[in-house]
């Protein structure tokens, strides 16, 4: 796997994901380009919901399934970090 390094937002979100979802992995071990759900970290729809609340509370960005690129937003840590940076209100 290509070692790409984390941006500041990716690192913040990796920590938020591990803490919010009580995962037993090192945040730094999340591949920023790997899928978060399904096969990747094995997260489910309740995790998506839980994560969306944490993101909303910290960054003021309310995730919606009707967002045109919702599948892309949750497709990887990198995509999620990009979306949060784009839409954050705090």
């Amino acid at each position, binding site marked *: 796997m290509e070692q790409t390094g984390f941006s500041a937002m990716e690192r913040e979100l990796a920590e938020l994901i591990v803490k919010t979802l009580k995962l037993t992995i090192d945040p730094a071990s999340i591949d920023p380009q790997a899928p978060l759900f399904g096969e990747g970290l094995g997260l489910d729809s309740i995790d998506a*919901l839980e994560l969306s609340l944490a993101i909303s509370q910290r960054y003021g960005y309310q995730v919606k*399934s009707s967002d045109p690129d919702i599948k892309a937003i949750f497709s990887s840590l990198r995509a999620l970090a990009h979306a949060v940076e784009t839409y954050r209100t705090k």
Partner: protein
Amino acid sequence: MREVPLIGPYQRDDLLAWGQEGGRTAAQFLRDVYSLADQLPDRPTVFNLAANRYEFLVGFAAAMMRGQVTLLPHSRVPHLLREMIRDYPDSYAYVDHEATGAVSELMPVLRRQHSACDLCPSDPPLIPWDQEVAIAFTSGTMGKPVPNRKTWGALTSVAQATGARLGIKERERIIIVATVPHQHMFGLEASVMLPIVHGLAMHEGRPLFPADVGNVLMAVPERWLLVTTPIHLRACVVEGITVPKRGLILSATAPLARDVAREAERQFQSEVREIFGFAEAGSVAERRTVAGDWWRPLDGVRVEQEGTVCVVRAPYLPEPVPVPDRLSVAPNGEFMVHGRKADEVHIAGYRVSLGELTSKLLQVEGVQDGVFVMPDEQCGLVTRLMAFVVAPGKSSEEILRQLRTHIDPVFLPRPLVCVPKLPRNETGKLPREAIDEMMRQWREEKSCEQ
């Protein structure tokens, strides 16, 4: 032979479903069902995996017309389907556009072709009352899913009684919006059967995030009824979504906290009603959460203490069904729920035995000892199970990866903690106090933060 029509008191042009593509009338629905029934393969059972609620209903109805039984797997994870197909080898899968490719390796797959049906009858087909139409699955003690067979009589009776209790009138202009999957027993009863029995409309989608729920409820052209769970409702309350028009909220699958119900009633300007039920019996009783702890059985349903267990009796249940919870029943038939029986836990709307999960954990290569436990405090929206494992030389990721192929993802431990040994007593048992102490010690290192 007693028969009940496929759909209730609709006029031809009444709205039956509403979604992104607009509305679908009762007449359109019947054309779709008759036309699909002709396309179905000649097989006894079907995995209905359709994500769109209307597509699910069309598949379910057409299968019923052909005398086929719809299987309701609560997960579409390939290895679970693979396990189930062994018991139902002549099945096919009915899917819509969102289905994944892994299914097609396991069985024939059918997608509905839109075709005209000029010669189709305009009346709904009649379905025998005692025809077995669906099987919902619960996890069994030996790890094999246990089938719960549902007759058309049971599904229609529960929907009748639920609607009556909620004060729903025939052909009332209501759109039912659901955050629960229709492959779940409560989802099937409340978001599919409830509308078609009473002549209401269903929303075709399944809003997940609070903002989605808010948007759908804003957009529905009629009064709404939100079928949901404590998890989704709590998320809506935390996000503070508001809705301009009044509706009705129906929650089930786990007990709803009264303060969440109170806050939801305030935010949505709508009553929050709760259903008590379980896969074996379906919906059993109802209450308005803010009004008190007592559950009122649905009309025609009786809950009775029989020796040490409580049972549910109803005209559509062939025999009394034991309740998986501890209850106390009042002389007027109302009851209070005191929690699950020992060893059984409830995660995200599904019930499982901790002993069964532990036995699966012990089958994982390299695991010497281990135990699944239910944490006594809740962080976040849903309580997840924990597991303590003794597996020298193995990482928790490795164990989880293997475990994932044996158990349903909702039951995967969060976290799975590797420990040098478990605090077993001299008889080899793990006393609850010792487990609590182990959890306490673990938490001191990694505190449970909100």
